[in-house]
């Protein structure tokens, strides 16, 4: 009973914040509203007894991605004056894209057989995740690392101060 109340509260927080991100006139508000969306997701992960994933979500998304987003928004010159936001994008193409996406997602949701998990007992997940990463899924894991390495080197190359003779 209580779990359902908590779930709907978290879902409302996530969706509400996401709505604020999309519809806010002020892009700084949009950036800060991401915090609510990320925290809602953290809460849902905890509710699903995925403790490790929840903490990594907090560490990576709130501690890393959100802060970088806010940095980027704040350090872009004149971003507060123009008040650009997602609303400025043309309405026609947006409706088409969103409509197609909604139909695909609805179709997927309807077609999926949803299994009801028995009772979720909080159990340590860290061992299983570690073993899966370095066992069955070691190749995708390493490929993802390579992509990140490429991104790192790319960032350094782009931002490097050119030294001329």
């Amino acid at each position: 009973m209580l779990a359902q109340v908590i779930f709907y509260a978290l879902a409302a927080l996530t969706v509400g914040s996401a709505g604020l991100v999309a519809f806010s006139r002020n892009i700084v508000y949009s950036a800060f509203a991401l915090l609510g969306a990320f925290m809602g997701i953290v809460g849902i992960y905890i509710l699903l007894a995925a403790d490790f994933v929840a903490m990594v979500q907090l560490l990576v998304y709130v501690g890393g991605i959100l802060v970088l987003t806010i940095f980027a928004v704040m350090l872009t010159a004149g971003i507060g004056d123009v008040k650009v936001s997602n609303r400025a994008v043309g309405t026609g193409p947006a409706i088409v894209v969103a409509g197609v996406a909604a139909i695909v997602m609805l179709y997927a949701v309807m077609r999926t057989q949803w299994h009801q998990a028995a009772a979720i007992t909080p159990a340590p997940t860290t061992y299983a995740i570690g073993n899966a990463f370095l066992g069955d899924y070691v190749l995708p894991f390493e490929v993802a690392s390579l992509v990140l390495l490429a991104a790192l080197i790319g960032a350094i190359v782009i931002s490097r101060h050119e030294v001329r003779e």
Partner: protein
Amino acid sequence: MHTLIENLIAWGVFGKNPPRDVVAAIVVFVMSLVVFLVVALPFGGIVTWVERRVWARIQSRVGPNRVGPQGFLQWLADGIKIVCKEDIIPDEADSRLFKMAPYLVMLAFVLPWAVMPFSSSLILADMNVGILYMTAVTALTVVGVLMAGWASNNKWSLIGGVRSAAQIVSYEIPAGLSIFPVVLMTGTLSMQGIIRGQGWAPQHWFLFANPFTFVAANILYMSSLAEANRTPFDLPEAESELVAGFATEYSGWRYACFSMAEWGNLFIVGAIITTLFLGGWQFPHVTNNVVAMNVLEVITFNVKVLFLVFVSMWIRATLPRVRIDQLMTTCWKYFVPIAFVNMIGTAVWVAIWPDGNVAMGYIMFAGAIVLGALFIQRVIYYLRRSRMEVYFNPTI
């Protein structure tokens, strides 16, 4: 926690057959409130008085000694005064974000107390991912600080906020990497699990387990000080450059939130180091009485934490502030590579000696004692040579 909830239900405190999840929620809520009001808030206050006294003595002054015995109630007087102050919100400020920011910083200060291991049974939630949780929730501070800096609409606030965020994001990396050696040695992320992996005697602490963990402990302590915006890394609120950094425009209760979180974080920094490297609450098993053992463990834990808090005050009173480029150089060119070496070194060490190397613990502990003795000897030598008059009486 589980036993407490089961006992309360068995005693019929909540009537017959209460809904179990609601009871658990109530108990957790009340216990969290107790920990916050009885431990966290008074600590944030009292430590301001302790810090002012310690500084005063280091700088040959008297310090606040008027309110109550030895000025002990100074924090209460300051608290009442600051709460009575007008809550000023600048006209040009973004009032919604301006009002919200202090609470985010406060939230980042409150959340770590959930996994604070005071003793073998006194812990709110012994999570499987305790230490990860501890580092993750402190990341919320950055968002609050950036929000305060931007919403104040003041260039000093903004520069302070951006500096603070850059500093915290950078120092999170060596701090996080310095936790890994301990996790490698214990194979668990739970706070209690890490403490149980150590013994009460110093040679069984992870600080002295191998040379790499010793370095990791030092890097973690320095990085945590940087994350807590303490001198020598207090650039975000450098008084001589930025007035008070991101807190410049704040007054009254909202300012109190910032300063309380800042001082209270000292306890959290100390608690992380104590748990990971200094044996936490471990105390020799002297009695079978569970309550007495827990009291002794609480005292042990707090003595270790308060010692580290004292060291940070000592550092603040003696060291000058670093420059921003020095700050970044220290982090990226020294701390991060050393932290990686620590991690690999500990992994190799664990591969060679899976159960730890007891002899190394004794050797490193003896080395630490020799270093301490040399330090004290040098201090006494310089005191003699400068013919300084030293008063050891702290109660003037």
